[in-house]
């Protein structure tokens, strides 16, 4: 790791594939969306750059229609996924603390990430208001774990973890899969999934690392390209059987795109907070406003996730965009008031599915192999706007209760489309969903999807833990039904 790591976080390791522009990236037309897409294309996918914040969904998140009369219920419940959340916690090496009153009892294999001075300061603010908070469940090894070194509080999580402490799937699941005989073909890009005369999928056409078109035969195809890449691939896979895109007889492939509308609320404090120490995105979280309370003016709710402070470069860039850092004679005085004295949070709002929020194919933009790019059609709902307003006000309140002398908020946060969900939703009815309760496409019984696209609703927490628990559930169901995989219900 070099001293320029902070600058690289905003250049060649930028969250945006459009800014990064690596050969592995595909461009996304998100110009008309208030939320821009963030992802990473590599072995390990976006977990290479994620914060590793690792909350579970709440039981209520699977029954939104029954509870609140909006969106839809999932075709499975928390109890079905709970054992797989436990398995996933062991596979990913999750740290945390048992006893969070916001959740049913759950397994947490490793001790929590440190609070530090910053986390302690904010926790006291939550206590002053009597609000819920708890150390974040984090896919970060706080002790040596399964060949991974313990976290050393370097604070570089968002450019990748050179220590290997962060549970990105290149250091968790992939090594296990490879040891068991899986072949990984890197720097390849699938153009389309092919369909046989019987209407079943029979393989894929892809470009290899040299740009040569190849064919891969398959008895079963499992897609894991997440909420943007999966509909893009299915819509690019048109055939006689599926003229509107593979597995799209419902017309729902690409529809119901959900992000989590984010806000960032940052406070400036008088005292140094040692904010450059510790896992960047994992400290404490609050779910005080998670469940529906209609007196707030919106349905469903949000989480607060406390961040560590900004490093030297980020402090300057944040101060500049927040209007708190002049250039010229007064620069150093203003900077000294910000550096190591900032702390704050992101707000994760539950997004509700709307068919008009969608992924389609861009008519002209392509990747370097000439494959049509995805286009994002997304508008922030009135419910989300009200939720963001409420969250920003409460975020400022708790920062002030923690001792902040001033606060700055940005809502919605534009480059915050990390969580990509809903575009091939799960359900029991083939007319209103793309896959069944174990990820098998209703229209194509040897095609499975295991990513955020199959989410029915978004909850108000980071989705990776639930994507992986769902994947374990789907893999287990496939294994149990292997003898009659295409007939089983």
């Amino acid at each position, binding site marked *: 790791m070099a001293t320029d*790591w902070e600058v690289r976080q905003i250049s060649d390791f930028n969250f945006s594939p459009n800014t990064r522009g690596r050969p592995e990236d595909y461009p996304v037309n998100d110009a008309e969306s208030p939320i821009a897409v963030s992802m990473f294309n590599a072995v390990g996918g976006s977990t290479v750059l994620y914060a590793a914040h690792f909350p579970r969904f709440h039981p209520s998140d699977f029954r939104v229609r029954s509870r609140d009369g909006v969106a839809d219920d999932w075709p499975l419940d928390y109890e079905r996924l709970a054992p797989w959340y436990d398995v996933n916690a062991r596979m990913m090496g999750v740290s945390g603390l048992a006893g969070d009153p916001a959740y049913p009892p759950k397994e947490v294999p490793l001790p929590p990430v440190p609070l530090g001075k910053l986390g302690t300061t904010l926790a006291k603010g939550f206590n002053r208001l009597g609000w819920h908070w708890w150390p974040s469940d984090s896919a970060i090894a706080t002790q040596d774990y399964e060949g991974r070194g313990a976290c050393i509080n370097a604070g570089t999580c968002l450019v990748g973890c050179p220590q290997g402490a962060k549970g990105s799937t290149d250091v968790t699941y992939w090594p296990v899969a490879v040891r068991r005989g899986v072949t990984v073909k890197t720097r390849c890009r699938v153009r389309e999934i092919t369909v046989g005369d019987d209407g079943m999928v029979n393989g894929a056409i892809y470009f290899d690392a040299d740009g040569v078109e190849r064919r891969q035969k398959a008895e079963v195809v499992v897609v894991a390209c997440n909420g943007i890449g999966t509909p893009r691939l299915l819509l690019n896979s048109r055939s006689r059987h599926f003229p509107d895109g593979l597995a799209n007889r419902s017309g729902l492939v690409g529809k119901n795109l959900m992000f989590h509308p984010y806000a960032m609320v940052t406070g400036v404090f008088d005292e140094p907070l040692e904010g450059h120490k*510790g896992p960047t995105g994992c400290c404490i979280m609050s779910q005080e406003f998670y*469940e529906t309370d209609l007196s707030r003016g919106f349905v469903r709710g949000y989480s607060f996730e406390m961040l560590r402070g900004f490093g030297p470069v980020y402090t300057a860039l944040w101060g500049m965009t927040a209007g708190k850092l002049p250039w010229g004679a007064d620069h*150093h005085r203003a900077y000294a008031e910000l550096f190591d004295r900032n702390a704050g949070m992101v707000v994760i709002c539950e997004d509700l599915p709307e068919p008009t929020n969608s992924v389609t194919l861009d008519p002209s933009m392509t990747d370097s192999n000439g494959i049509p790019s995805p286009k994002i059609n997304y508008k922030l709902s009135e419910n989300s706007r009200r939720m963001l307003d409420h969250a920003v006000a409460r975020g400022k309140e708790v920062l002030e209760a923690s001792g902040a002398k001033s606060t700055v908020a940005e809502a919605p946060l534009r480059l915050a489309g990390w969580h990509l969900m809903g575009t091939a939703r799960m359900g029991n009815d083939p007319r209103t969903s793309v896959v069944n309760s174990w990820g098998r496409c209703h229209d194509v019984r040897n095609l499975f999807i295991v990513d955020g696209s199959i989410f029915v609703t978004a909850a108000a927490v980071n989705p990776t833990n639930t994507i992986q628990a769902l994947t374990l559930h789907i893999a287990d169901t496939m294994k149990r039904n292997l003898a009659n995989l295409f007939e089983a219900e």
Partner: protein
Amino acid sequence: MASDDPGFSAEHEQVMAALIDAILPAGDDGGMPGGAALDLVTHVERSVRQNPMMRPVVEYGLSTIAEIAAKRNPSGIAGLPRAEWAAALREFAANDQFFLPAFLFLVYGGYYQHPRVVTALGLEPRPPHPKGYEMGADDWSLLEPVRGRRRSSSD
């Protein structure tokens, strides 16, 4: 430098150096170095080579600043009194939308990762890995008020 990359002209480099010095003068107490002392021109040039889309914006800004300075003093920036130079920059900034945000982005990136600046901020001039940082023990009794709450997970 790539063979097809012309780099910045001598005039642009001169404007850039003067501008960086105006953006980041040395701290009054001598603690923080000025931008001119850290060869940030080289950093900006390297950044623009890595992101060629920025070149037109940067060149436009530097040319415009040079033109404004020339109107105030035909011999250009070199002969411009300090107050006149400051006024020229204010005149430019009042009408600029794109150059300064982009340029500040580049300059701050180079400045605040420089070992002399990092040291002046009280940090060790090193990358965070592999040494990492020690964090003290935490007081988990802070959680007592939260543990006492009724379980809020509905269902």
